[in-house]
C-alpha cells in the first residue's frame, strides 16, 4: 500500500456530499472504473452479468456495466477505486483500460419525480423515458458526461475528473433551484 495519500476529485480528503431538500448529492470517490472493448472476433467475457446494449446499464454482483459504443462498455466496481482493475480484467481478446481516475462520479438520490425534474435541467434526454437501467453519454454544460439511472430514486453523473468542480457546481445549483418553493 502506497504511503501517498490520495485526494478526491473535488480536492478534499473526504468525498463531498450535500443534502438539498429532497435530494442528496454525493461524490463517490470509491468507484472503480475500467473500460472494456472486445477485440476483433472476441466473445464477451464472463463477468457475472449480461453486458447491456445501447443505452443500457446493468448491475451484477459487485460490479455494473454500461454500454459506451459498439463492443465497448464501462465497468463499474463500487468501492473498487483502489484495485488494479486493468490487471484484474486483462484477458485474451480484451482491451481493458483503467479509468478510475479518468472520471468523477456523483450519485444523486431522491424521489423519482424529483429526479425526473432534475434531469430536465441537467441533460438533453427524455427524462420520462430514461428509466432505471438507462445510461447515456451526453452534453452537460459544454462537457461530455455519462448519465446513469440506477434505480427510480438513484441517478449518477460521471464526468471528467479534472472538471469535477464545474460538474458539482452545476449539480448543486440545479438542485438548489429545484428546491426553491414555487
Amino acid at each position, binding site marked *: 500500500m*502506497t504511503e501517498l495519500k490520495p485526494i478526491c476529485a473535488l480536492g478534499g480528503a473526504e468525498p463531498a456530499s450535500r443534502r438539498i431538500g429532497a435530494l442528496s448529492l454525493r461524490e463517490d470517490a470509491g468507484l472503480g472504473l475500467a473500460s472494456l*472493448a472486445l477485440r476483433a472476433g472476441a466473445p464477451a467475457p464472463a463477468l457475472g452479468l449480461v453486458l447491456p446494449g445501447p443505452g443500457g446499464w446493468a448491475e451484477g454482483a459487485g460490479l455494473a456495466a454500461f454500454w459506451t459504443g459498439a463492443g465497448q462498455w464501462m465497468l463499474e466496481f463500487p468501492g473498487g477505486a483502489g484495485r488494479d482493475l486493468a490487471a484484474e480484467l486483462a484477458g485474451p481478446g480484451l482491451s481493458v483500460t483503467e479509468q*478510475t481516475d479518468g472520471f468523477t462520479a456523483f450519485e444523486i438520490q431522491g424521489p423519482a419525480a424529483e429526479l425526473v425534474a432534475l434531469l430536465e435541467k441537467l441533460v438533453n434526454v*427524455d427524462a*420520462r423515458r430514461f428509466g432505471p437501467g438507462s445510461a447515456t453519454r451526453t452534453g452537460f454544460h459544454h462537457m461530455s458526461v455519462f448519465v446513469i439511472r440506477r434505480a427510480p430514486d438513484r441517478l449518477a453523473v460521471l464526468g471528467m475528473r479534472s472538471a469535477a*468542480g464545474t460538474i458539482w457546481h452545476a449539480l448543486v445549483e440545479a438542485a438548489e433551484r429545484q428546491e*426553491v418553493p414555487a
Partner: protein
Amino acid sequence: MTRLSGGLIDRSRSLTFTFDGKTYQGHAGDTLASALLANDVRLMGRSFKYHRPRGVIASGSEEPNALVELRGGAWQEPNTRATVAELFDGLAARSQNKVGSLGFDLLAVNDLLSPFFSAGFYYKTFMWPRAFWEKLYEPAIRRAAGLGSLTHEPDPDAYDAGFLHCDLLVIGGGAAGLTAALTAARAGAQVILADEDFRLGGRLLAESAPLDRPATDWIAGIEAEFAGLPNLRVMRRTTVWGAFDHGIYGAVERVSDHLASPGKRVRQTLWRITTKRAILASGATERHIPFADNDRPGVMLSGAMRAYANRWAVSPAKRVAIFTNNDDGHRTARDLLAKGVEIAAVIDPRPAASGAGYRTIQGHVTGTKGRLGLSRIEVTANGRSEWIDCGALGVSGGWNPNIQIASHHRGRPVWHDGLQAFVAGPGGPVGLIPAGATSGQSSTAQALVSGAKAAQAALADLGITATLPDLPQAEDQALNLKPLWHVPGKSRAWVDFQNDVTVKDIKLAYQENMRPVEHLKRWTTLGMATDQGKTSNVTGLAVMAELTGQSIQSTGTTIFRPPYTPVALSVLGGGDTGTHFRPRRLTPTHDWASRQGAVFVEVGQWMRAQYFPRAGETTWRQTVDREVLATRTGVGICDVTTLGKIDVQGADAGEFLDRVYCNAMKSLKVGMVRYGLMLREDGFAWDDGTCARLAETQYVVTTTTANAGTIYRHLEFCRQCLWPELDVQLISTTDAWAQLSVAGPNARKLLQRVVDGFDLSNESFPFMACANLTVCGGLRARLFRISFSGELAYEIAVPARYGNALIERLIDIGADLGATPYGTETLGVLRIEKGHAAGNELNGQTTAQMLGMGRMVSTKKDSIGAVLSRREGLVAERRVLVGLQPVDASQPVVAGSHLFAEGAAQDTASDQGWITSACYSPHVGSAIGLGYLDNGDAQLGEQIVAANPLQAQQVVLRVVSPHFVDPEGGRVRD
C-alpha cells in the same frame, strides 16, 4: 379612472406601481398597459425616429409603440412591451427614447425635420466627410433615434436552461391550442402546451360571448382536466420563439418577471423542446389601416380596444370611434357600447354596413387632432369631411395569421385571396401544423374544431388514435372584409409605428426602384424593429403592390427568423457566467500549486500553474528566470497532465498508428517511446507528441494540450470510418493519469528516491525508454524518459488522485537536489531554448520540412497527409525553423515580427519569414526567438532585421541554430 364593469381583473387586490416616477393603482390581472389606460394614461412613449408621441396600439406581444424600461439599477431592462408586462405591486416603469419629459421631448424637433429623414436617408446623407461617420454622425443618430438604454452593468439576475421532450408541442393556448392539447392529451400522448400569456385562453378572454357559456368557465373546466393529466405539461408565461432542426423548438419561460420579490428564483428559463410534431396555434394579429396622422395616442387596433374592455375592463376613452373594413370592428363597437362606452361613430367604407345603437358612416378617416393624444378625427364621406370628437379610435383592417414560426426554415408564406392574408406555405419546419387563426380560421367555432383536428392528424402520423372532444357552440361569424390597405392623402400615414415608416416612405422606395420586398424592407426599415413588423409588414407589402400594380402574391413577402419576440441575451446564455461560463478543468496538482502561491493561466479549459513566485521576486521574469536556471542546474518539476493521452490497443494498433503518424510506429520496440508527427490530409503538420509502446498490443499516444480532443476525435474517425477492418481500440486517458515532468541534471537522483526498486541507470532505462512500475511503496505508475527541455528528463504518471501527493513528495525529498516546481512560462522558455516546436510553430501553415523533420515523413509506408506533403508547392517551401538572437543583447525579440534582409524594403514582396516564439533566455543571457526564415539553413550566422511595425520596432538579429541549449543532445542521453 376609465374602468368598466366586468373583466378578468381581481378588483380585491390593488397593486401600486409607478410610471415615470408617478404612482398609480392597478389590479391583479392587469398588464402595465391596461393599468395605465385605466389611469387615463394614453401617452406611453416616443417614436423611434421622429419622437412623435405614441400610445399603446395592441394588447399583446405584437405591440410596436408602448415600449418601456422596467426595473432599476443593474436590473433595468429596456424595450419591454407594456402590453405583456404583468403588473405587480411595486413595479417601476419608465418611458424611453426621449430628452426631457415624455410630454415635452426636446428631440421632437426631429418631427419638424422629417423631410430630411425619409426612407434611406442614412444611405444618402452623412457620406462626407468620410471620417465624420464614426465620430460624429453615427453617435448623433444613435442618440436621436433609438430605443431604451442599457445599464452597461452585468446582469445580476440568474437564468436557467432545460430540456423537454414530447410527442406534440402546442404553441399557443387560445381556442385552437386548448382543443389541440385536450385532444392529444386525452389520447395519452406526451403533450406540452406553451402560451406566452399568464392566463390560458387567448382571444377567448378578449371576447364578450365567444361560446355558448362563459368562456372562463369552459377554460377553467379544461384547466381542471389538464391538471389531472400527467402526460400534459402546461407552460404559461412561456414563449416559443423559434423552430430549429430536427423538431427542436426554443422557448423562454418567464419564471419570476411577474413577481415583486423573486427571492432565489431564476428570472427566466431557456427550454429546448424536442418534439415529434408541433401545432402552431399562435393566433392572428390585427392589422391597421394607415391614414393621415394615424399614430396619435388613442388610435389603436379595434380588437385590442375590445380586449381591454372585455378582459381588463378598461376603455382608453369615454367616447370612442371605430374605423373598420370588416364586421369585426362592429363587434368592438357593440361590446364597448354594452359596457357603457359612448360610440361616436363607426366609419366603415363598405356599402350598407351598419350596427344597432351607434352611428355608422360609410367613409374613411382622413385625419386626426390632439397634441399628446387623440381628441378629434376627420371623417370623409361622399366628398364631404367632418370632425368628430373622440378620445380613442379603434382601427380594423383585417387579421394576419401569426405564421412567423412556420417560416423559420425558410418556409415562404403564400397569399390567400379568400382570406386576404398570408398563410403558412410549404418548406416550413417539418411536422409543424398551423391551426386556428394561424391557419386562417377566423371564427371561434372554426378555431375550436381546427385545433382538435390538427391534433388528431398529428397523432395519427405517430400511430396514436385520438378522438375529437365535444366542443361548445361558438360564434361563427365571417369577417366580410373588403380590402382597404391605406387611405390616400397628402399627410404622413404610418405603416410601421415602431420604425416610423410611412406610406410616403414606401412610395419613395418605389420611386427609387427599391421595389422587391427585400429591398423595400432594407431601404425603409419596414418590419425591422423589435416587433419584426407584426402589425405592419403585410400592409406595407400591399401598399407596394398597389403602387406597382401587381398582386400581393406576386409582390411576395419577406420571411421571418427567430426569435418570434425579443429574447434576452442572458437567457440565451443559459445562466452560465463568470467562472462558470465554461468548464474549468483543474490539474491533479492544482491544490498543491495553489498552496504554493502559484499564478494560474487559462489554457483552453484548463487552469495551469503559470509560475511559482517566491518572496522577494517582484516581477514574473525574476520567477521564471529562477525556475529555468533551477531546472538546468538542479531539477525542475512541472505538471504536464493536460497533454492528451490516448490508450491504443489491439492486434493492429501498430498498423493503425503507422497510418496516422507520418513516421513509423509499428517498428517501435516494447518499452520504448518515439516522437511522432501527424499530418493533416493536405500534408501540413497538425500535431506532435510521443508514442510509447507499453506492450505488444498496447501503445499510449500523447497529443498537445490544445489538440487533445480533436486528435482523439480524428483517431476515432479513422478507426470507425476509414479502417474498420483494423483490430484497434481507443480510449482517452488524459484525466486518468497525473503526469509530471521531472527535468534537469538531478532528475534521475530525485526519481531514484521514489521508485520501488526500479533501475534508472542509463543502461537499463535509456533515453526514450518507458515502463510500468510502482513508486512510493506500491503505487502503480508509468515512467517515460523523454525531454522537452533538453535536459535529462522523465515524465512520471500516477493515478490522478495521487498527483497532488506525488509532487509534494518530490519537492520535499528533492530539496537538497534543488527540486523546484515550474509552470507554463518556464516550460515555454525551456522548449524555446531547446528549439522544440509547439503550438506557435504548428499553426496549420507549417510543413514537416519547415520544422526540419522532412525526412520523418516515411516513404516506406503510406500515412495520412504523406502524399500531399510531397506535392510541388510544399516541397518548394524554403522556409525553415531557425533560432534568432539579437546582435545587441539588450534588444528585445518580439513574436509575430516579420523578417527582412538588412536594408531591404519592408513589404510583402521582400518578407523572408516571421518569428513564431520568443522569450528571455537566462541560459543565453538575452532575448531569443524561433522563427521560419527563407533558406534559413543557408543564413546561419548572418544578420537579419525583425520588423514590428505595430510598435515601430526594428531589431537586428543573428540567425543561429534553433538549439540554444546542448545542440548535440548529450544531456538528454546522460
